[in-house]
């Protein structure tokens, strides 16, 4: 690790001021950043500890829930309002990492965690367009079990590893950010980018901007929603495929559907096509399979992750069936 200075931001304005300085990086729980510094992938000169940023989880006047960026992942998952109104979010967070890591990780840091592509982490030995733009991508033609099947590019086939962000994508969450030029909010589905020819640019966050909060709008379908994660071991592993989903069924027809997939793309993958396919359909196996087919029709797997296409379809159909059993 290269030498580094450390300071604590006392307030959001302090964090914004310090975040704008060259070489400065914000430090949440450190579960991703400290590891990547040790591996030589990240080399900040100054760490600005933002764990002191507000982390309250509160209901706004319009019924939205606002989660402060400093909220620890474990606190979000266990909060009574999240458990009762947005169970898919509690389950997604609880499916991620371990209890120790969830106690450390912050909401802001979770959204900005970097890919777990092994070539990205191997600063000394592998070529990677994300870490060193223009150097090539050793994943293509390499070990691709954890890599993308949707939305990838010839420059990068990495996946976004967050479970929490998959549920947030399905829930139409908004990310509140602030910088020297003021504050703005953007949909979580527009926050992360597809790799294109700039895989080093991962989000729409401008240099110097700070995540201050995540907002969950009121939702009719969220109270009966679910999150299912398929992985190589039963717990404490990143997703091969995950599904966050919620349905509203009225008069025997699907009137609303919200679905997102994890483990398949460079960003949490909102399944717009599957949602459109389900609209107005009777909730049965045939409709669920058709929706899954529609979503995965554009999949471009690699030799090492062909299995993910079938796995994603089956997991999606199974989660939708499970939601109907609950509502029956």
């Amino acid at each position, binding site marked *: *690790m290269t*030498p*580094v*200075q*450390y300071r604590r931001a006392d307030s959001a304005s302090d964090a914004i001021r310090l975040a704008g300085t060259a070489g400065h990086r914000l*430090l949440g*729980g*450190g*579960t991703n950043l*400290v*590891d990547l*510094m*040790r591996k030589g992938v990240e080399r900040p000169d100054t*760490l600005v*500890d933002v*764990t002191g940023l507000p982390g309250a989880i509160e209901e706004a006047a319009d019924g939205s829930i606002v989660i402060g960026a400093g909220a620890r992942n*474990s606190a979000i*998952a*266990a909060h009574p309002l999240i*458990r*009762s109104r947005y*169970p898919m979010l*509690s*389950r997604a967070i*609880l*499916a991620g*990492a*371990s*209890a*120790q*890591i969830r*106690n*450390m990780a912050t909401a802001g840091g979770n959204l900005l965690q970097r890919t777990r592509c092994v070539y990205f982490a191997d600063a000394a030995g592998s070529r990677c367009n994300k870490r060193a733009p223009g150097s090539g991508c050793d994943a293509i033609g390499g070990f691709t079990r954890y890599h993308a099947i949707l939305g990838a590019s010839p420059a990068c086939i990495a996946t976004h590893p967050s479970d929490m962000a998959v549920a947030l994508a399905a829930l139409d969450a908004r990310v509140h950010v602030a910088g020297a030029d003021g504050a703005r909010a953007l949909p979580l589905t527009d926050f992360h980018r597809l790799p294109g020819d700039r895989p080093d640019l991962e989000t729409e966050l401008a240099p110097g901007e700070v995540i201050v909060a995540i907002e969950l709008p009121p939702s009719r379908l969220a109270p009966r929603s679910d999150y299912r*994660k398929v992985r190589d071991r*039963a*717990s*404490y592993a990143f997703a091969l495929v995950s599904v966050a989903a919620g349905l509203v069924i009225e008069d025997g027809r699907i009137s609303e559907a919200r679905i997102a997939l994890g483990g398949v793309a460079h960003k949490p993958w909102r399944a717009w096509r599957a949602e459109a396919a389900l609209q107005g359909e009777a909730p049965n196996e045939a409709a669920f399979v058709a929706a899954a087919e529609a979503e995965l029709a554009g999949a471009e797997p690699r030799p090492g992750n062909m299995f993910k296409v079938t796995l994603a379809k089956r997991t999606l159909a199974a989660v939708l069936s499970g939601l109907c059993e609950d509502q029956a």
Partner: protein
Amino acid sequence: MAITINGTPVDPPADPRVSLLDLMRDRLHLTGTKVGCNQGACGACTVLIDGQRVLSCLTLAVQAEGRTVTTIEGLGADGLHPLQQAFLEHDGFQCGYCTPGQICAASAMLEEVAAGMPSYVTRDLAAPARLTREEVRERMSGNLCRCGAHNGIIDAIMAVAEEQAA
């Protein structure tokens, strides 16, 4: 501001790169906490900060300034902790390398259950948490054991949980 480790105030290191784990082991000679992977993947370095279980390998020591750290040495300061005794009785270890982390994690885990916190395998998120073997497995999945002592570890934790409930 000091870091309070097992009741003793300690100055934070001048170099912010020093992890809490390295501060304790290399500079304070508190070697009860083990270093396994040094990258968040094994749980051997688990300690409690302000009562919550965390990984000391990914915690910079400076982040613990003003906080209270408890290690296995602290848990066992007044004679064997009930979990230590139970690990002995139920063969909760073989080589013992993962054991300090397992016991620190288990002590916090029992508090989390008492506080009603759910896990990924908790079916009804609205109901109070109940400790089953399946729940212990999931809640302790952040602590690996290369010797495969897991069945003994779960027996030991269940025994302490049942004692506490009685």
